[in-house]
């Protein structure tokens, strides 16, 4: 006994074909509505979103009702599915509201820091990426090098500078990787082309500046000491060199080889 005989009516072949045709037709209509070259989308304005939502909702509904047979099946299935659907919809809407409309201004952070969009620049970036990808095939969409983080200078559009060549250690450790990864330095310190930090001195030119920071100490030793014991000497006259923020012991989890890798990386920032 097949339990599908318990339900009532089954759609016929012709009805299934009609459903398919309607699905295709609605999809074509949606495509034409938004395709810039068709010229309709500008005149839609704000009605674009509800219009597309309704059209897609129709597609959604007829697949569920006819292909998934919900129209002809026991109402319990409908209730069970709609419970999940409405809840998902409600939670999504509530989250969107909390993030955009209800105060707290969570979007202000992004708006402040993002670079303004320039279509030509974006095109140029894409071409460069394609060229690079053609040369060095990468197996995964997970990043193998740090993301190009924007550097923003007042008013003008800046292209992110190329990340510096990695300084390879005899230990095989990559200082830049540690700077951004387990060392956690990139969260606070800025290095051009590598990281955009929130506090802490800009280290983009530490290679040339370090020798002058602490009298009597070589650049390498100074950097090493600053990493291991940040409060031993706080530079004066350097922007955002604030005593106490980089706490003593914060780098306790790094081995000496890792700190050496960091030192060599920072020395290379001329």
């Amino acid at each position, binding site marked *: *006994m*097949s*339990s*599908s005989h*318990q339900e009532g009516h*089954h759609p016929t072949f012709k009805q*299934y*074909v009609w*459903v*398919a045709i309607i*699905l295709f037709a609605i*999809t074509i209509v*949606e*495509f034409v509505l*938004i395709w810039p070259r068709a010229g309709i989308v500008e005149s839609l304005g704000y009605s*674009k*979103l509800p219009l*597309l*939502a309704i*059209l*897609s909702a129709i*597609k*959604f509904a007829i*697949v*569920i009702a006819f*292909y*998934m*047979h919900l129209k002809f099946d*026991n109402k*319990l*299935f409908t209730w*069970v*599915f709609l419970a*999940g*659907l409405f809840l*998902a*919809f409600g*939670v*999504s809407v509530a*989250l969107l509201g909390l993030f955009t409309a209800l105060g707290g201004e969570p*979007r202000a952070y992004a708006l402040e820091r*993002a*670079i*303004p*969009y320039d*279509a030509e620049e*974006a*095109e140029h*970036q*894409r071409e460069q*990426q394609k060229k690079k*990808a053609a040369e060095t095939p990468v197996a995964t*969409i*997970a*990043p193998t090098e740090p*993301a*190009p983080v*924007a550097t923003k200078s007042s008013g003008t*559009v800046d292209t*992110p500078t190329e990340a510096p060549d990695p300084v390879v250690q005899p230990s095989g450790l990559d200082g830049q990787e540690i700077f951004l990864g387990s060392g956690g330095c990139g969260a606070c310190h800025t290095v051009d082309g590598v990281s955009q930090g929130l506090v802490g001195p800009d280290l983009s030119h530490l290679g040339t500046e370090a020798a002058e920071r602490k009298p009597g100490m070589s650049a390498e030793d100074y950097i090493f000491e600053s990493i291991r014991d940040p409060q031993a000497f706080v530079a004066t006259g350097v922007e955002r060199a604030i005593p106490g923020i980089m706490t003593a012991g914060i780098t306790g989890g790094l081995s000496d080889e890792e700190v050496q890798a960091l030192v060599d990386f920072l020395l290379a920032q001329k």
Partner: protein
Amino acid sequence: MAHAVEPAPHAEEEYTTTGLNHRKLLMWVFLGSDCMFFGTLIATYMVYRGQSLNGPYPIDIINVPVTTISTFVLLCSSFAMVQALAATNRDDQKAIRIWLLATAFLGAIFIGFQIVEFNAFKNEGLTLGVNLFGASFFTLTGFHGAHVTLGVIWLLGMAVLAFKGRVGPATALDVEILGLYWHFVDIVWIIIFTLLYLIGGFDTGPLPPSGG
């Protein structure tokens, strides 16, 4: 699940309170749960729309015409699935095999489109880590693609059973349940296509303040 085309004893004829089959009810309840799963992923995408700090932005990357074609492919596969179930109900063994294979084939084509598309995006600089668009886009479409892939594997398994003559009216429930899963994956794609491609596909980054 039954071995032979004859229903297993004590299985389908068991008394149930509602008269509905356990496994079919299970699949519908599971789909309700899966709605929440995809709903949360979609909510993440919607919350982070326009929040990326740097490009590439959707308008640079998204290719609506190509994805419209892959959407058609998936809609066709739903039609094929429905035909497979109808063939099972009328015990048309040849049609069962053809339509099951067709559904699996169309699903595989869809996955093929996704792989080619994602590769192109990656080559143009969109990775998981480059910005929020990359993260939310790949996570959402990646999990959808994983659902489709599992469905294709299930379909191929069902096709193997069909070639052994073990799919027929007595086991139509198995095909029906597979169909429910497959159509669900299709309707999730309808939502993703609308939000990420038709609506979100033309998002740019923040525009320069007017007046320069």
